[in-house]
């Protein structure tokens, strides 16, 4: 390449990869996502009717940490995210190990476990609301056949949030499973070969080979389901609407309720709280999960 050709090629590269390709996406994203996000920082500090906003400082946030039902929503959100992502990691991993072994009917198993991921969340929520009815629900009727008195899944305030979380796991574990399968399949066979020569048992195989080497998959599953759990709204809305009382309210359902009630400033403050909650919990979590290990 001659010296004169270099700038010409650079020019050409510039038009080959034109900066204006960013433009349409950037406009849509900035106007409809970024602008409202920045606006929310201001409006969360106001009493707001959509037509005029009165600046009231941190009153909305103070209310968020004073009203017991709002605090409960905050606590519930974290519990829900921890429970669902924890269960999805454990069950997803177990199912993936099973599905990558020499098991019969692998195609059937994989499809059946994955399909709920694609089904309408509201549809799933309404179906399980019927199945979980304390007396007429199929789950408790089936338990009664074994002489077990089933609990009041969605009507018991202590249990409602966990019941919804269980349905979330039912619907979402297929995604965790296929992510784990992709991770497990990518582990080079040499490691298992070496472990076999060293006389490792199946349990040792799992603990010393599978578990550490599927770490990227674990990081993906935890991050995805944790963020999803913190933001969850539709399943809770379809099953309990936050009830009984406020027992299964999450920040996202509080945001909707305050919006419906016309407390737009408070609703927006809820959005900011959720945003901060996600930032405070998820950023350190992903940094911890993706940290480089010593030998890498």
């Amino acid at each position, binding site marked *: 390449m001659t010296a004169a050709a270099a700038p010409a090629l650079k020019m*050409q590269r510039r*038009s*080959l*990869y*034109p*900066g204006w*390709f*960013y433009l*349409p*996406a950037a406009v*849509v*994203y900035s*106007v*409809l996502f970024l*602008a*409202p*996000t920045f*606006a*929310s920082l201001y409006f969360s500090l106001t009493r*707001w009717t*959509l037509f005029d906003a009165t600046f009231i400082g941190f009153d909305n946030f103070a209310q968020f940490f004073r009203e017991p039902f709002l605090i409960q929503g905050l606590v519930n959100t974290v519990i829900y995210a921890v429970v669902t992502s924890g269960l999805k990691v454990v069950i997803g991993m177990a199912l993936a190990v099973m599905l990558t072994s*020499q*098991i*019969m*009917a692998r195609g*059937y*198993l994989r*499809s*059946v*476990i*994955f*399909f709920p991921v*694609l*089904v*309408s969340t*509201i*549809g799933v929520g*309404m*179906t399980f609301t019927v*199945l979980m009815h304390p007396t*007429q629900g*199929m789950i408790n*009727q089936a338990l009664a056949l074994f002489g077990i008195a089933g609990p009041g899944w969605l009507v018991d305030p202590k249990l409602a949030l966990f019941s919804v979380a269980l349905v979330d796991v039912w619907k979402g574990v297929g995604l965790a499973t296929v992510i784990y399968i*992709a*991770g497990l399949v990518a582990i080079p066979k040499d490691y298992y070969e070496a472990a076999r020569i060293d006389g490792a048992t199946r349990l040792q195989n799992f603990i010393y080979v599978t578990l550490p080497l599927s770490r*990227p*998959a674990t990081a993906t*599953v935890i991050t995805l389901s944790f*963020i999803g759990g913190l933001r969850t*709204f539709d399943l809770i809305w379809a099953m309990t609407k936050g009830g009984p009382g406020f027992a299964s309210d999450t920040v*996202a359902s509080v*945001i*909707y309720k305050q919006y419906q009630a016309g407390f737009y400033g408070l*609703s*927006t403050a809820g*959005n*900011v709280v*959720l945003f901060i909650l*996600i930032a405070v919990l998820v950023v350190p979590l992903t940094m911890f999960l*993706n940290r480089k290990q010593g030998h890498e």
Partner: protein
Amino acid sequence: MRSRGSIIGGVAAIAATFVVFVIPFLFIILMAFKDKQQSALRDFSWPNGFHLWDNLYEVVKTRNWMMITAFINSSLITVVSVTLLIVLAAMVGFVLARRKTRWNGLIEFLILAGLMIPPAVVPTIWLLQGLKLFGTLHGMILIQVAYNLPFSIILYRAFIATIPRELDEAAVIDGARPLDVFFRIILPLLWPVTVTNIVVQSVGIFNDFTNPLYYLPGNQNATVQLTLYNFQSQFSTAYNLLFTNIMLITIPPLIVFMFFNRQIVAGMTAGAVKG
């Protein structure tokens, strides 16, 4: 060659997944075949007669044929927003993968932010009202594009990084104009990841409940997910109709799943291996 233990394990796995994952769907189907009295019992029993057609007709014509409107609205939103998403995300992914500038860091930060940050609902409504887009299908479409761009861009960027850069330069030497390089050389090569994008995003947008609930109020704007609330009232729920409705809106994802199983899994597990 299979040991007895593994056969027992296999049968146990099939039985367990059948109870946990298949029976709820069978329950939905059985309910859709029942009449109102029998469905009110909400048990797992064989239908007393064949009422599927009656139920379907009833579901479709409820509230002035709302189901038809809803299917049209949902299909329109899904098709248009996925088309826009694909073109916009491929353009961004292409330049982002090819051109390294000091802006790349910022753009990647914005993409991650878009995946994590929950949208600020009321300010968005306020803004849409100002733009005269609130409660319109165009507004809903643009919202879906804005919210789903980050995921599509990530899929495209990862794929474009695997296409050798020399291809672009060879095309230029052969006389392709700069825009042709993208639209006639690169875009067709992206077909596999485009299919993945179409499938994953369509299912997500078709199933979306929260965003239409906030940004698309009004009966004439109903989407399919909202029709599920037609048969629920505090005093009496027509369970046969509710479950017929659930079955009806499960069919599109089922069809997608049967034909594009591999692409869906590929799209949803992207990034699991590399991390």
